[in-house]
């Protein structure tokens, strides 16, 4: 009995000695870290290196404005830190010289690349965001028109923190499907691919009523890992159709005379890319299935829906096809395989791919693409046909 007690006591003593001697290296209280919500990467004025902007939260301000209601408009709940340096990592660490607290990256919501920064060698410059376990692959990647750092100075209306509002904006892309959401994982996957061109949404500052607001519009297209060009909203949705990432949105289809139109709401959509090799030449068949409702129409005499279902569906398919073709045209113009056709061929025809791989750029340029759209009409809304004058 005595000996067993002794051993137990010794064990406990050892355990606690290890603990107390070891101390607590990693312990950091919440009030000793500054939580980074957004990071911007820019090319500095004088050329070399990188200019990093980190948006950190001021927790005290969040609390204060909660208490005072909406009055605290003067003080911001965020603080933007800027620093220039050669390597990204050293620059990030260097923030300690400016802030009294250590920067804490795991809650980083957005990674904004400045337009000029994105021009070349993106892969190497963002290496740290993959390597460091503090960062996550779920960070949204965006490209800014102009300097990335300016984005963070725009004070959002609904949220307290700019980066958080951008992140919510990206989340809400689904409402229109006219801008794409890309996280670091997707971005990297595309960079690593032999053929697929990386894309990222564009964000820019717009003036509205004397106030600066942020607008997400268009898609930045990268070639290898440098910025190559841009897709506009229409082309972006074309891209989204092909990728099968359209979640919802509105399709406007105009009937030529008198500005009459019907607006369709997209309910669900899916796509299938099926590559084929015909006579040694690759071609791609894209099938897009869409289902939607009638959301709005402004025909003077009303719309006889019952008889027009087929016609309306045709109209809708036309619009979708138009968008896809526009995107395809732009992609060929930029010679960037944003749709991932190359990967599809790779997966289905691994042997032939080995030959195609090296001159994919030229193959892509005259790749035969067939687009098939099946648009369906589900509901016609709460009202039946309105007949004028009755």
């Amino acid at each position, binding site marked *: 009995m005595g000996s067993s*007690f002794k051993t137990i006591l010794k064990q406990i003593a050892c355990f606690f000695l290890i603990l107390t001697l070891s101390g607590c290296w990693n312990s950091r209280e919440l009030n000793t870290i500054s939580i980074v919500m957004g990071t911007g990467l820019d090319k500095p004025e004088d050329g070399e290196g990188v200019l990093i902007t980190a948006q950190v939260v001021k927790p005290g301000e969040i609390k204060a404005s909660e208490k005072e209601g909406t009055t605290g408009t003067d003080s911001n709940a965020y603080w933007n830190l800027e620093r220039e340096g050669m390597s990204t990592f050293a620059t990030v660490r260097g923030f300690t010289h400016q802030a009294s607290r250590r920067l804490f990256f795991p809650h980083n919501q957005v990674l904004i690349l400045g337009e000029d920064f994105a021009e070349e060698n993106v892969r190497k410059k963002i290496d740290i965001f993959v390597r460091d376990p503090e960062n996550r692959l779920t960070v949204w990647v965006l490209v800014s028109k102009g300097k990335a750092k300016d984005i963070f100075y725009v004070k959002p209306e609904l949220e307290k923190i700019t980066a958080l509002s951008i992140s919510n904006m990206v989340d809400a892309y689904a409402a229109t499907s006219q801008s794409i959401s890309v996280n670091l994982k997707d971005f990297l996957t595309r960079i690593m691919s032999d053929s697929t061109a990386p894309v990222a949404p564009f964000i820019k500052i717009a003036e509205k009523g004397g106030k600066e607001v942020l607008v997400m519009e268009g898609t930045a297209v990268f070639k290898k890992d440098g910025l190559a060009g841009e897709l506009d909203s229409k082309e972006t949705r074309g891209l989204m159709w092909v990728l099968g990432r359209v979640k919802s949105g509105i399709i406007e289809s105009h009937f030529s005379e008198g500005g009459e139109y019907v607006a369709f709401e997209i309910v669900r959509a899916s796509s299938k890319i099926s590559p084929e090799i015909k006579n040694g030449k690759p071609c791609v068949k894209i099938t897009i299935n869409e289902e939607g409702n009638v959301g709005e129409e402004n025909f003077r005499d009303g719309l006889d829906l019952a008889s027009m279902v087929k016609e309306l569906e045709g109209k809708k398919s036309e619009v979708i096809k138009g968008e896809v073709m526009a995107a395809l045209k732009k992609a060929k113009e930029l010679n960037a395989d944003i749709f991932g056709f190359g990967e599809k061929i790779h997966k289905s025809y691994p042997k032939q791919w080995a030959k195609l791989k090296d001159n994919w750029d030229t193959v892509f340029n005259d790749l035969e693409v067939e687009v098939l759209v099946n648009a369906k009409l589900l509901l016609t809304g709460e009202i039946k046909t309105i007949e004028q004058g009755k």
Partner: protein
Amino acid sequence: MFRYILRKVAFLSTCGKNSNEKYKYKEVEENRLCTDIDQNLEALKNILGSSNDIITREFVFAGEGRVKGLLVFIEDLVDNKIINESIIKPLISGTPLIYKKENADNVNVVKSEMLSVGDVKQENSMDEIVYSCLSGDTVLLIDGSAEALIIASQGGENRGVEESKTESVVRGPRESFSEDLRTNTSLLRRKIKNPDLTLEKMKIGRRTGTMVCISYIKNLAAPELIEEVRRRLKAIDTDAILESGYIEQFIEDAPFSIFPTVSHSEKPDVIAAKILEGRAAIMIDRTPFALTVPMLFIEDFQSPEDYYSRPYFSSFIRIIRFLSFLISILAPATYVALTTFHQELIPTNLLLTMAAAREGTPFPSVLEAGIMVITFEILKEAGIRLPRPVGQAISIVGALVVGESAVSAGLIGAPMVIVVAITAVSSFVVPFQSDTGSILRIILLGLAGFMGAVGIMMGLLVLIVHLASLRSFGAPYFSPLAPHNASGMKDTAIRAPIWLMDTRPSSIDRDKRRRQAAHSKPEPPKKQ
């Protein structure tokens, strides 16, 4: 210093082991009665001393012989009605049957023809006589015979059978044990009307001479278990047994573990259920708590009401109980680990709110949590010990001062108060483990403060291994989780319908005998 303490403690723990040989009472030569009543009286008086409550009543038997008799009893322990009506009356004014003091048969005559009391024993050992007298029996000495009669006449004041205070139920029997052993055994007998229910009494405690009763069901409890219980109880050589806790600490398997390996209850239905599963119960005179062995860890999560209400809700409540236990030991530690080590685990919006609440609080999180947990223990203890009306005042002051002012003064963050409050409430869900919980909570909090989640994990690993290595009277303590057994799972996180629980817990009843008919599932009569 440390070594010194170690040595001391080691010494103390060896004491218990050797005491059997070293400190054993000198066997007193058997003191026996003689035939002369005056000598006997003298001897008795010598032993019993001069306490005023000891009554020695001399009388003369009815009849010609004028044989002298003597009643010895303790005034406050006996039922006066029995003494007056059933003992003295027939002896003095009943049919004269004692003629001569030399008659060897006198004792038997008195016992079988005169006394109208149920329990009468013949005895000639002085020790026994004194012990009976001290436990409320009446001793009758008859001149000329070397045998005394011990007449059961226990009476005096006893708390009645009341509703249980510590284990209240909504549905189920309300009665609980009282201090009187005889009342308690009677409650048990009334539950189990079976001749196999065996009650073995033994006396423990040199000075208190406390009556302890091992109760079990003869063909259910393993004979080795009963033998082991007897052995451990007999090995107790101490001067006082005042409560079941004394016995518990003398017989438990793992005296240094923070987990109890002997279970206790004050409800007869609980004890009955446990001995019906093949356990042995140890009932102790003068305490309403009875012990049962072997104990399993999950027993503390089983409430008698689980079996009285229907299985769905019972199972749900079981899961809630396990969850509450985990919350009660882990919540402060997890909170500290999250806020000081793994901030990345907290959802962003929550983190911002928490960071805002944390702003400006002066202490490190671990210290803050430690202060709050200790404060809670202080408040709890104060609430229990103080008289009820004052206790309420304490809880109001505690809630106001700690909860409200500390937060508004910026000493402690509001989330911490919430966490400790949840911990406090959950710790009461499993009342039997709440004392273990308090200790575990503080240990885990320390570990979390040093190494975050890894520290907690290490603590839990040690805890699980420890639990798995414990045994209680031969039964693996952590069963049916480790070692696992499928049939035991029916009564762990879920409580299967009674008609499905065919066998007793296999770690206790190793023979795995059925306790009910195989197809006990209720079924409505089939339509023809």
